[in-house]
Protein backbone atom coordinates (compact mmCIF):
# COMPACT_ATOMS: atom_id res chain seq x y z
CA UNK A 1 0.00 0.00 0.00
CA UNK A 2 1.39 3.39 -1.00
CA UNK A 3 1.38 5.84 1.92
CA UNK A 4 0.75 9.56 1.44
CA UNK A 5 3.88 10.38 3.45
CA UNK A 6 5.98 8.36 1.00
CA UNK A 7 4.51 10.34 -1.89
CA UNK A 8 5.17 13.61 -0.06
CA UNK A 9 8.88 12.73 0.10
CA UNK A 10 9.00 13.01 -3.71
CA UNK A 11 10.02 16.58 -4.60
CA UNK A 12 7.68 16.67 -7.62
CA UNK A 13 4.67 15.84 -5.45
CA UNK A 14 5.47 17.89 -2.38
CA UNK A 15 3.11 20.72 -3.42
CA UNK A 16 0.02 18.57 -3.98
CA UNK A 17 -2.75 18.49 -1.39
CA UNK A 18 -3.72 15.30 0.46
CA UNK A 19 -6.94 14.79 -1.58
CA UNK A 20 -4.88 15.11 -4.77
CA UNK A 21 -2.29 12.61 -3.53
CA UNK A 22 -5.10 10.21 -2.62
CA UNK A 23 -6.22 10.28 -6.25
CA UNK A 24 -2.67 9.51 -7.31
CA UNK A 25 -2.33 6.52 -4.97
CA UNK A 26 -4.65 4.38 -7.15
CA UNK A 27 -2.38 4.63 -10.17
CA UNK A 28 0.96 4.53 -8.33
CA UNK A 29 3.06 1.42 -8.90
CA UNK A 30 6.10 0.45 -6.86
CA UNK A 31 9.03 -1.29 -8.50
CA UNK A 32 12.40 -2.60 -7.45
CA UNK A 33 15.53 -2.88 -9.55
CA UNK A 34 18.98 -4.25 -8.81
CA UNK A 35 22.27 -2.52 -9.49
CA UNK A 36 23.24 -3.00 -13.13
CA UNK A 37 19.66 -3.21 -14.48
CA UNK A 38 18.56 -0.85 -17.20
CA UNK A 39 15.16 0.64 -16.38
CA UNK A 40 14.97 1.93 -19.94
CA UNK A 41 17.24 2.64 -22.86
CA UNK A 42 17.50 5.58 -25.20
CA UNK A 43 14.74 5.26 -27.81
CA UNK A 44 12.51 2.90 -25.80
CA UNK A 45 8.80 3.69 -25.65
CA UNK A 46 8.37 6.09 -22.71
CA UNK A 47 5.66 4.36 -20.72
CA UNK A 48 6.41 5.45 -17.15
CA UNK A 49 7.39 8.48 -15.16
CA UNK A 50 9.58 7.38 -12.22
CA UNK A 51 10.47 8.73 -8.78
CA UNK A 52 13.12 7.29 -6.49
CA UNK A 53 12.11 6.14 -3.03
CA UNK A 54 15.53 4.66 -2.29
CA UNK A 55 18.67 4.01 -4.32
CA UNK A 56 20.39 5.64 -7.25
CA UNK A 57 19.94 5.68 -11.03
CA UNK A 58 22.35 7.09 -13.62
CA UNK A 59 21.11 8.74 -16.81
CA UNK A 60 23.47 8.04 -19.68
CA UNK A 61 23.87 9.18 -23.26
CA UNK A 62 25.99 7.39 -25.82
CA UNK A 63 28.72 9.71 -27.07
CA UNK A 64 29.46 7.21 -29.83
CA UNK A 65 28.21 3.63 -30.14
CA UNK A 66 28.69 1.79 -26.84
CA UNK A 67 30.54 4.70 -25.19
CA UNK A 68 28.09 5.94 -22.58
CA UNK A 69 28.61 9.22 -20.72
CA UNK A 70 26.75 9.64 -17.48
CA UNK A 71 24.91 12.96 -17.46
CA UNK A 72 23.13 12.83 -14.14
CA UNK A 73 22.65 10.58 -11.17
CA UNK A 74 19.19 10.63 -9.64
CA UNK A 75 18.79 9.88 -5.97
CA UNK A 76 16.10 9.77 -3.30
CA UNK A 77 13.12 12.07 -3.88
CA UNK A 78 13.95 12.93 -7.48
CA UNK A 79 12.06 12.11 -10.67
CA UNK A 80 13.05 10.97 -14.18
CA UNK A 81 11.41 9.73 -17.37
CA UNK A 82 9.57 12.98 -18.11
CA UNK A 83 9.18 11.83 -21.74
CA UNK A 84 6.25 9.68 -20.57
CA UNK A 85 4.36 12.87 -19.81
CA UNK A 86 5.63 15.70 -21.91
CA UNK A 87 6.10 14.16 -25.35
CA UNK A 88 2.87 14.34 -27.28
CA UNK A 89 3.10 11.90 -30.19
CA UNK A 90 6.20 9.73 -30.11
CA UNK A 91 6.87 9.02 -26.47
CA UNK A 92 10.49 7.96 -26.40
CA UNK A 93 13.06 8.11 -23.66
CA UNK A 94 16.10 10.12 -24.63
CA UNK A 95 18.71 8.54 -22.31
CA UNK A 96 19.54 5.18 -20.79
CA UNK A 97 18.54 4.80 -17.14
CA UNK A 98 21.01 2.42 -15.47
CA UNK A 99 20.54 1.36 -11.86
CA UNK A 100 23.69 2.16 -9.86
CA UNK A 101 22.57 0.87 -6.47
CA UNK A 102 19.58 -1.34 -5.63
CA UNK A 103 16.62 0.96 -6.15
CA UNK A 104 12.99 1.22 -5.11
CA UNK A 105 10.80 3.38 -7.29
CA UNK A 106 7.35 4.77 -7.75
CA UNK A 107 6.15 4.63 -11.35
CA UNK A 108 3.16 6.18 -13.03
CA UNK A 109 2.01 5.28 -16.51
CA UNK A 110 2.01 8.49 -18.56
CA UNK A 111 -1.36 7.83 -20.21
CA UNK A 112 -3.01 7.16 -16.83
CA UNK A 113 -1.61 10.38 -15.42
CA UNK A 114 -2.94 12.31 -18.43
CA UNK A 115 -6.36 10.74 -17.94
CA UNK A 116 -6.32 11.73 -14.27
CA UNK A 117 -5.36 15.30 -15.16
CA UNK A 118 -8.17 15.60 -17.72
CA UNK A 119 -10.55 14.67 -14.91
CA UNK A 120 -8.89 16.94 -12.33
CA UNK A 121 -7.60 20.02 -14.10
CA UNK A 122 -6.33 21.77 -11.01
CA UNK A 123 -4.21 18.82 -10.00
CA UNK A 124 -2.89 18.48 -13.56
CA UNK A 125 -2.03 22.15 -13.61
CA UNK A 126 -0.11 21.98 -10.32
CA UNK A 127 1.66 18.78 -11.36
CA UNK A 128 2.73 20.08 -14.77
CA UNK A 129 3.70 23.45 -13.28
CA UNK A 130 6.04 21.65 -10.92
CA UNK A 131 7.45 19.57 -13.79
CA UNK A 132 8.12 22.82 -15.67
CA UNK A 133 9.94 24.22 -12.64
CA UNK A 134 12.07 21.10 -12.23
CA UNK A 135 12.84 21.08 -15.96
CA UNK A 136 13.75 24.78 -15.80
CA UNK A 137 16.10 24.19 -12.85
CA UNK A 138 17.74 21.26 -14.65
CA UNK A 139 18.18 23.41 -17.77
CA UNK A 140 19.63 26.25 -15.69
CA UNK A 141 22.03 23.81 -14.09
CA UNK A 142 23.05 22.41 -17.49
CA UNK A 143 23.70 25.98 -18.65
CA UNK A 144 25.91 26.61 -15.63
CA UNK A 145 27.77 23.35 -16.15
CA UNK A 146 28.24 24.30 -19.81
CA UNK A 147 30.19 27.34 -18.55
CA UNK A 148 32.78 24.95 -17.14
CA UNK A 149 32.68 26.81 -13.86
CA UNK A 150 35.16 24.85 -11.80
CA UNK A 151 38.16 26.29 -13.69
Amino acid at each position, binding site marked *: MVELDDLKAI*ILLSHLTDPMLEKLVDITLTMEHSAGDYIFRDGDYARYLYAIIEG*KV*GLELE*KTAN*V*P*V*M*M*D*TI*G*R*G*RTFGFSALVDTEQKKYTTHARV*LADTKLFAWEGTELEMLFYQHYEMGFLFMKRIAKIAKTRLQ*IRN*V*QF*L*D*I*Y*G
Partner: protein
Amino acid sequence: MENPYLPYPARIDSVVTETEDRNLKTFKLVFLNSEDRGKFIHRAGQFAELSVAGKGEIPIGIASSPTEQGYLLFTVNQVGVVTGALHQMEAGDTIGVRGPLGNWYPWERMEGKNVVIIGGGFAFTTLRASIIYMLHPENRSRFGDITVIYGARTPGMLLYKDELAAWNERDDIRMHITVDAADDPDWKYNVGFVPTITQEAAPSAKEAYALICGPPIMIKFTLPILSELGFPPERIIMSLEMRMKCGIGMCGRCNIGTEYVCKDGPVFDLAHMSRLPNEY
Protein backbone atom coordinates in the same frame (compact mmCIF):
# COMPACT_ATOMS: atom_id res chain seq x y z
CA MET B 1 59.08 42.93 16.26
CA GLU B 2 59.49 40.91 13.08
CA ASN B 3 59.01 42.56 9.70
CA PRO B 4 55.58 41.32 8.53
CA TYR B 5 56.60 41.75 4.88
CA LEU B 6 59.55 39.36 5.18
CA PRO B 7 58.92 35.84 3.84
CA TYR B 8 60.36 32.67 5.35
CA PRO B 9 62.50 30.76 2.84
CA ALA B 10 61.15 27.28 2.10
CA ARG B 11 62.30 24.37 -0.05
CA ILE B 12 59.94 22.54 -2.37
CA ASP B 13 60.03 18.97 -1.07
CA SER B 14 57.72 17.45 -3.69
CA VAL B 15 55.29 18.43 -6.41
CA VAL B 16 52.17 16.39 -7.23
CA THR B 17 50.14 17.00 -10.39
CA GLU B 18 46.56 16.72 -9.22
CA THR B 19 44.38 16.99 -12.31
CA GLU B 20 44.22 15.49 -15.80
CA ASP B 21 44.70 18.92 -17.42
CA ARG B 22 47.97 19.24 -15.41
CA ASN B 23 46.95 22.76 -14.40
CA LEU B 24 46.73 22.06 -10.69
CA LYS B 25 49.74 21.05 -8.67
CA THR B 26 50.23 20.51 -4.96
CA PHE B 27 53.51 21.78 -3.54
CA LYS B 28 54.88 20.35 -0.31
CA LEU B 29 57.10 22.94 1.35
CA VAL B 30 59.59 22.58 4.17
CA PHE B 31 61.05 25.64 5.93
CA LEU B 32 64.79 26.05 5.31
CA ASN B 33 65.33 27.26 8.90
CA SER B 34 63.85 24.93 11.49
CA GLU B 35 63.07 27.85 13.87
CA ASP B 36 60.70 29.32 11.23
CA ARG B 37 58.61 26.16 11.50
CA GLY B 38 57.75 27.01 15.12
CA LYS B 39 56.75 30.56 14.16
CA PHE B 40 54.32 29.46 11.44
CA ILE B 41 51.34 28.23 13.49
CA HIS B 42 48.20 28.21 11.41
CA ARG B 43 44.53 27.20 11.72
CA ALA B 44 42.54 25.56 8.92
CA GLY B 45 41.05 28.27 6.70
CA GLN B 46 44.05 30.61 6.70
CA PHE B 47 46.21 31.50 3.72
CA ALA B 48 49.82 32.50 3.07
CA GLU B 49 51.60 34.69 0.53
CA LEU B 50 53.92 32.63 -1.67
CA SER B 51 56.71 34.50 -3.43
CA VAL B 52 58.77 33.53 -6.45
CA ALA B 53 61.94 35.62 -6.86
CA GLY B 54 61.64 38.17 -9.66
CA LYS B 55 57.99 37.28 -10.34
CA GLY B 56 55.93 38.41 -7.36
CA GLU B 57 53.84 37.27 -4.44
CA ILE B 58 50.38 35.64 -4.41
CA PRO B 59 47.86 34.63 -1.73
CA ILE B 60 47.23 30.86 -1.62
CA GLY B 61 45.08 28.94 0.88
CA ILE B 62 46.95 26.56 3.16
CA ALA B 63 45.89 23.07 2.08
CA SER B 64 47.60 21.22 4.93
CA SER B 65 46.07 20.82 8.34
CA PRO B 66 47.82 22.13 11.45
CA THR B 67 47.91 18.47 12.52
CA GLU B 68 50.23 17.64 9.58
CA GLN B 69 53.50 18.73 11.09
CA GLY B 70 56.84 19.57 9.55
CA TYR B 71 55.57 20.72 6.17
CA LEU B 72 52.95 22.87 4.43
CA LEU B 73 50.85 22.00 1.38
CA PHE B 74 49.60 24.47 -1.24
CA THR B 75 47.55 23.52 -4.28
CA VAL B 76 48.03 26.02 -7.07
CA ASN B 77 46.01 26.57 -10.22
CA GLN B 78 48.12 27.92 -13.07
CA VAL B 79 46.50 31.16 -14.28
CA GLY B 80 49.21 33.81 -14.75
CA VAL B 81 52.68 35.11 -14.01
CA VAL B 82 53.40 33.87 -10.48
CA THR B 83 51.34 30.69 -10.60
CA GLY B 84 52.96 29.94 -13.99
CA ALA B 85 56.44 30.42 -12.52
CA LEU B 86 55.57 28.19 -9.58
CA HIS B 87 54.41 25.46 -11.95
CA GLN B 88 57.85 25.53 -13.61
CA MET B 89 59.57 24.86 -10.29
CA GLU B 90 60.67 21.47 -9.06
CA ALA B 91 61.60 19.66 -5.88
CA GLY B 92 64.69 21.29 -4.38
CA ASP B 93 63.84 24.84 -5.56
CA THR B 94 63.36 27.60 -2.99
CA ILE B 95 60.40 29.97 -2.62
CA GLY B 96 59.23 32.45 0.04
CA VAL B 97 56.29 31.90 2.40
CA ARG B 98 54.75 34.76 4.39
CA GLY B 99 52.05 34.07 6.95
CA PRO B 100 49.90 32.54 8.21
CA LEU B 101 47.48 35.29 7.21
CA GLY B 102 43.79 36.05 7.63
CA ASN B 103 41.23 34.44 9.89
CA TRP B 104 40.11 30.81 9.96
CA TYR B 105 36.95 28.75 10.04
CA PRO B 106 35.18 29.27 13.38
CA TRP B 107 36.58 26.15 15.06
CA GLU B 108 35.58 27.24 18.56
CA ARG B 109 31.96 27.86 17.52
CA MET B 110 31.83 24.59 15.57
CA GLU B 111 32.92 22.45 18.49
CA GLY B 112 30.31 19.79 19.31
CA LYS B 113 28.37 20.63 16.13
CA ASN B 114 27.76 18.76 12.88
CA VAL B 115 29.79 20.09 9.97
CA VAL B 116 28.77 20.11 6.30
CA ILE B 117 31.60 20.87 3.89
CA ILE B 118 30.63 21.97 0.39
CA GLY B 119 33.34 22.55 -2.20
CA GLY B 120 33.69 22.97 -5.93
CA GLY B 121 36.71 22.70 -8.22
CA PHE B 122 40.08 23.80 -6.94
CA ALA B 123 38.60 25.85 -4.09
CA PHE B 124 38.75 22.69 -2.01
CA THR B 125 42.17 23.39 -0.54
CA THR B 126 41.36 24.85 2.88
CA LEU B 127 38.40 22.46 3.06
CA ARG B 128 40.88 19.59 2.72
CA ALA B 129 42.87 21.12 5.58
CA SER B 130 39.63 21.26 7.61
CA ILE B 131 38.68 17.64 6.92
CA ILE B 132 42.15 16.35 7.83
CA TYR B 133 42.03 18.49 10.98
CA MET B 134 38.61 17.19 12.10
CA LEU B 135 39.43 13.55 11.29
CA HIS B 136 42.62 13.62 13.36
CA PRO B 137 42.16 11.14 16.23
CA GLU B 138 42.63 13.92 18.80
CA ASN B 139 39.91 16.06 17.20
CA ARG B 140 37.31 13.68 15.76
CA SER B 141 35.27 13.44 18.99
CA ARG B 142 35.10 17.25 19.20
CA PHE B 143 32.77 17.35 16.17
CA GLY B 144 29.46 15.65 15.36
CA ASP B 145 28.60 14.25 11.92
CA ILE B 146 30.83 15.34 9.06
CA THR B 147 29.27 15.48 5.59
CA VAL B 148 31.29 16.42 2.50
CA ILE B 149 29.84 17.42 -0.87
CA TYR B 150 32.56 18.04 -3.44
CA GLY B 151 32.19 18.60 -7.18
CA ALA B 152 34.44 18.99 -10.20
CA ARG B 153 34.03 18.92 -13.97
CA THR B 154 35.19 15.35 -14.52
CA PRO B 155 36.61 12.56 -12.35
CA GLY B 156 40.10 13.52 -13.55
CA MET B 157 39.63 17.10 -12.31
CA LEU B 158 39.01 16.17 -8.67
CA LEU B 159 41.77 17.11 -6.23
CA TYR B 160 43.25 14.71 -3.66
CA LYS B 161 41.74 11.61 -5.34
CA ASP B 162 43.42 9.06 -3.06
CA GLU B 163 42.26 10.87 0.06
CA LEU B 164 38.71 11.18 -1.29
CA ALA B 165 38.63 7.42 -1.90
CA ALA B 166 40.00 6.72 1.60
CA TRP B 167 37.45 9.05 3.25
CA ASN B 168 34.71 7.35 1.26
CA GLU B 169 35.60 4.06 2.95
CA ARG B 170 35.36 5.50 6.48
CA ASP B 171 32.17 5.42 8.49
CA ASP B 172 32.82 8.61 10.46
CA ILE B 173 32.50 10.91 7.45
CA ARG B 174 29.78 10.97 4.75
CA MET B 175 31.14 11.66 1.28
CA HIS B 176 29.09 12.88 -1.70
CA ILE B 177 31.51 13.28 -4.59
CA THR B 178 30.10 14.51 -7.87
CA VAL B 179 31.17 15.51 -11.38
CA ASP B 180 29.44 17.26 -14.29
CA ALA B 181 29.72 14.17 -16.52
CA ALA B 182 31.53 10.84 -16.35
CA ASP B 183 32.56 8.53 -19.18
CA ASP B 184 34.34 6.13 -16.85
CA PRO B 185 32.14 3.01 -16.62
CA ASP B 186 33.56 2.33 -13.14
CA TRP B 187 32.60 5.78 -11.80
CA LYS B 188 30.82 4.94 -8.55
CA TYR B 189 29.98 8.37 -7.18
CA ASN B 190 27.46 10.99 -8.36
CA VAL B 191 26.96 12.95 -11.53
CA GLY B 192 25.29 16.31 -11.11
CA PHE B 193 25.81 19.85 -9.93
CA VAL B 194 26.87 20.48 -6.32
CA PRO B 195 23.57 22.25 -5.39
CA THR B 196 21.49 19.31 -6.69
CA ILE B 197 23.61 16.83 -4.79
CA THR B 198 23.32 19.01 -1.68
CA GLN B 199 19.53 18.89 -2.04
CA GLU B 200 19.61 15.12 -2.48
CA ALA B 201 22.03 14.53 0.42
CA ALA B 202 19.81 16.84 2.51
CA PRO B 203 22.19 17.19 5.48
CA SER B 204 20.29 18.19 8.59
CA ALA B 205 20.70 21.80 9.65
CA LYS B 206 20.16 20.88 13.28
CA GLU B 207 23.21 21.93 15.30
CA ALA B 208 25.11 22.13 12.02
CA TYR B 209 27.51 24.51 10.31
CA ALA B 210 28.04 24.63 6.54
CA LEU B 211 31.47 25.61 5.17
CA ILE B 212 31.25 26.47 1.49
CA CYS B 213 34.01 27.31 -0.98
CA GLY B 214 33.79 27.31 -4.74
CA PRO B 215 33.02 29.35 -7.81
CA PRO B 216 30.54 32.20 -7.08
CA ILE B 217 27.88 30.71 -9.37
CA MET B 218 28.01 27.40 -7.48
CA ILE B 219 27.62 29.28 -4.21
CA LYS B 220 24.74 31.32 -5.64
CA PHE B 221 22.80 28.12 -6.47
CA THR B 222 23.72 26.36 -3.22
CA LEU B 223 22.78 29.10 -0.73
CA PRO B 224 18.99 28.86 -1.35
CA ILE B 225 19.20 25.10 -0.84
CA LEU B 226 21.03 25.50 2.45
CA SER B 227 18.44 27.96 3.58
CA GLU B 228 15.61 25.59 2.48
CA LEU B 229 17.31 22.93 4.60
CA GLY B 230 17.13 25.34 7.53
CA PHE B 231 20.70 26.64 7.85
CA PRO B 232 20.59 30.16 9.33
CA PRO B 233 22.95 32.73 7.73
CA GLU B 234 25.23 32.84 10.76
CA ARG B 235 25.93 29.12 10.36
CA ILE B 236 26.83 29.34 6.66
CA ILE B 237 30.54 30.07 6.42
CA MET B 238 32.32 31.17 3.24
CA SER B 239 35.84 32.03 2.18
CA LEU B 240 36.41 34.93 -0.25
CA GLU B 241 39.16 35.16 -2.86
CA MET B 242 39.70 38.88 -3.47
CA ARG B 243 42.72 40.38 -5.21
CA MET B 244 45.34 41.11 -2.51
CA LYS B 245 48.71 42.68 -2.12
CA CYS B 246 50.07 43.10 1.41
CA GLY B 247 47.86 40.48 3.08
CA ILE B 248 48.01 42.30 6.42
CA GLY B 249 45.44 45.10 6.15
CA MET B 250 47.92 47.84 5.22
CA CYS B 251 47.59 48.56 1.50
CA GLY B 252 43.80 48.78 1.10
CA ARG B 253 43.79 46.56 -2.01
CA CYS B 254 41.26 44.04 -0.76
CA ASN B 255 38.63 46.04 1.08
CA ILE B 256 34.86 45.52 0.92
CA GLY B 257 33.35 48.56 2.62
CA THR B 258 35.25 48.91 5.86
CA GLU B 259 36.47 45.30 5.98
CA TYR B 260 39.79 44.04 4.66
CA VAL B 261 39.35 40.55 3.26
CA CYS B 262 43.01 39.73 4.00
CA LYS B 263 42.81 40.62 7.68
CA ASP B 264 39.11 40.50 8.72
CA GLY B 265 38.60 37.52 6.35
CA PRO B 266 38.93 35.65 4.09
CA VAL B 267 36.39 33.65 6.15
CA PHE B 268 33.01 35.34 6.74
CA ASP B 269 29.62 34.01 7.70
CA LEU B 270 26.67 34.78 5.44
CA ALA B 271 25.00 36.99 8.07
CA HIS B 272 28.14 39.15 8.19
CA MET B 273 28.51 39.16 4.39
CA SER B 274 24.98 40.33 3.82
CA ARG B 275 25.82 43.44 5.86
CA LEU B 276 28.73 44.26 3.53
CA PRO B 277 28.36 46.24 0.29
CA ASN B 278 27.72 43.82 -2.58
CA GLU B 279 31.20 44.08 -4.12
CA TYR B 280 32.47 40.56 -3.70
